[in-house]
């Protein structure tokens, strides 16, 4: 049951309708039961994992205050879960044990869906309680709901307990929330089905058969992958936010137009915001605060450690290490040249300078994402080398358009032009579209346009999962 399957739409229609008519005191229990069904539907191992980890952290938090050893135990257990999740997801030697009565697979348990997302939430929870910034939650069902709330279970956004648990008590569903939630849901479906899934085959054809392509074709595919990643993940987030809003919950948005960033540090303030806030609050600031008297050295160590841990979270391997090194270098450079860049920015304070900066940042991000997307470090290096050989293809049709269009038929070529057109129009009017989606009054023009575009241009049979489900 992925977020774009018919079964999921039936599921959310029923949950949203029943929840709306239920008396307030029963709502959170009903959403908890729905979330248990949602998680259990994927596999029983995921359900077992989330129940076990939630229970462990719930009990631990009761005794953790000012107890350094218990806090350390909590950090080790939750961090080990993330490391094991990523080790097993990159290893082909998963353990499989079958029991007589129930077929329980240890590798699936370790690979439990959403494990690394709620493990980060659990670390945040025990840290806040340990440092006396938060009272431990007294109702176990509320803590379970915090971890299992189905719209955010698979890929976040990561939310701190103090931001979510109070909403259980103050849960109010208004018509405004229903309208805004529905409009956001449509925006998410549009981004995923009309843009991300239409781009995906072309990106795969170049990255999976990298030895066949060079120059402009590889460069275009690497640009398209970053765009695919953005539309896929922000589409998922819009859907998660929309569904939550219709259930009476507010989650933080994960994206703030990141492709318009004019520096890499600005990009990281606008991309996957909830994860970056987590890393900033629980890794970067504690490290840099302790090292602050080392002046320029402190942020560099902090950036490296943050991206190193982010690498472990995304996946253990050379490709993710290279991705982390890229961003450490980018941010380190920006940190050391902060003042001279500010002088430049003041001197060339015009739209052209801003566009050049946005273009450079986009290219830097795309470069690092070649490592992020490639199945091995060698593939990534091969792709990067290929960009600089035979840059202009002999024939634009067979060398560039056909690989991106996938197929080589006229309909495929037409389709890719439609995709680029839709993508360009969306990016130009992105802020206005987002404003329309967030409007609290029914915006019929927006709804009709979204539905029509999804029905006409949406990819219905791809069966593709959201990219961030793997983390």
């Amino acid at each position, binding site marked *: 049951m992925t977020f774009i399957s018919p079964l999921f739409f039936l599921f959310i229609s029923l949950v949203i309708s029943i929840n709306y008519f239920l008396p307030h005191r029963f709502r959170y229990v009903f959403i908890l039961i729905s979330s248990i069904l949602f998680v259990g539907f994927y596999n029983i191992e995921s359900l077992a994992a989330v129940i076990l980890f939630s229970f462990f952290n719930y009990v631990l938090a009761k005794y953790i205050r000012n107890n350094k050893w218990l806090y350390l135990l909590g950090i080790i257990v939750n961090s080990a879960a993330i490391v094991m999740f990523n080790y097993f997801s990159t290893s082909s030697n998963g353990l499989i044990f079958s029991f007589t009565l129930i077929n329980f697979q240890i590798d699936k348990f370790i690979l439990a869906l959403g494990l690394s997302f709620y493990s980060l939430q659990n670390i945040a929870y025990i840290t806040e309680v340990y*440092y006396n*910034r938060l009272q431990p939650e007294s109702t176990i069902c509320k803590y379970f709901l915090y971890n299992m709330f189905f719209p955010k279970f698979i890929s976040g956004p990561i939310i701190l307990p103090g931001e979510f648990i109070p909403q259980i008590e103050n849960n109010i569903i208004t018509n405004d929330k229903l309208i805004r939630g529905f409009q956001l849901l449509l925006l998410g479906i549009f981004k995923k089905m009309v843009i991300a899934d239409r781009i995906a085959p072309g990106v795969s054809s170049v990255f999976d058969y990298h030895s066949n392509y060079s120059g402009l074709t590889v460069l275009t595919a690497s640009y398209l992958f970053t765009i695919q990643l953005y539309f896929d993940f922000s589409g998922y987030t819009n859907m998660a936010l929309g569904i939550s809003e219709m259930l009476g919950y507010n989650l933080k948005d994960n994206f703030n137009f990141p492709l318009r960033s004019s520096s890499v*540090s600005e990009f990281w*303030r606008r991309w996957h915001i909830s994860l970056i806030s987590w890393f*900033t*609050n629980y890794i*970067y*600031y*504690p490290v*840099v*605060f302790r090292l*602050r*008297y080392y*002046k*320029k050295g*402190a*942020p560099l160590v*902090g*950036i490296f450690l943050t991206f190193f841990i982010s690498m472990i979270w995304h996946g253990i391997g050379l490709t993710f290490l290279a991705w982390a090194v890229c961003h450490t270098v980018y*941010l380190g450079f*920006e*940190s050391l040249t*902060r*003042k001279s860049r*500010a002088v430049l*920015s003041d001197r060339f304070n015009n739209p052209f300078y801003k566009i050049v900066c946005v273009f450079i940042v986009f290219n830097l991000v795309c470069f690092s994402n070649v490592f992020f997307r490639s199945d091995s470090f060698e593939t990534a290096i091969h792709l990067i080398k290929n960009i600089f050989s035979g840059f202009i293809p002999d024939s634009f049709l067979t060398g560039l358009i056909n690989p991106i269009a996938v197929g080589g038929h006229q309909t495929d070529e037409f389709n890719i032009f439609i995709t680029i057109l839709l993508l360009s129009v969306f990016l130009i009017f992105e802020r206005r579209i987002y404003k329309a989606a967030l409007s609290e009054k029914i915006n019929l023009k927006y709804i009709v346009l979204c539905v029509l575009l999804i029905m006409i241009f949406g990819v219905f049979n791809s069966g593709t999962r959201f990219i961030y489900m793997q983390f």
Partner: protein
Amino acid sequence: MLNTLERLQKVFRRVFDNDKLVINPKTSAKDINMWDSISHMELISEVEAEFKIVFSFDQVMEFNNAGDMLTVIELLLPNS
């Protein structure tokens, strides 16, 4: 004799390399382009050096604007 706000402004000007920077208690990261998570800790250590005080981590995490910083500085100053 400079008051606390003026001394704090002097530190801001030095860290953000802007001699014309004027701050008030409501000044936040939104008002100063270069005030991000990377420059924030440099600012903290410079403020500590200027006022000869030591912030706790929890105090630093609560700073949302220059006013929050001023309140804690005045609390930590020996003569307060």
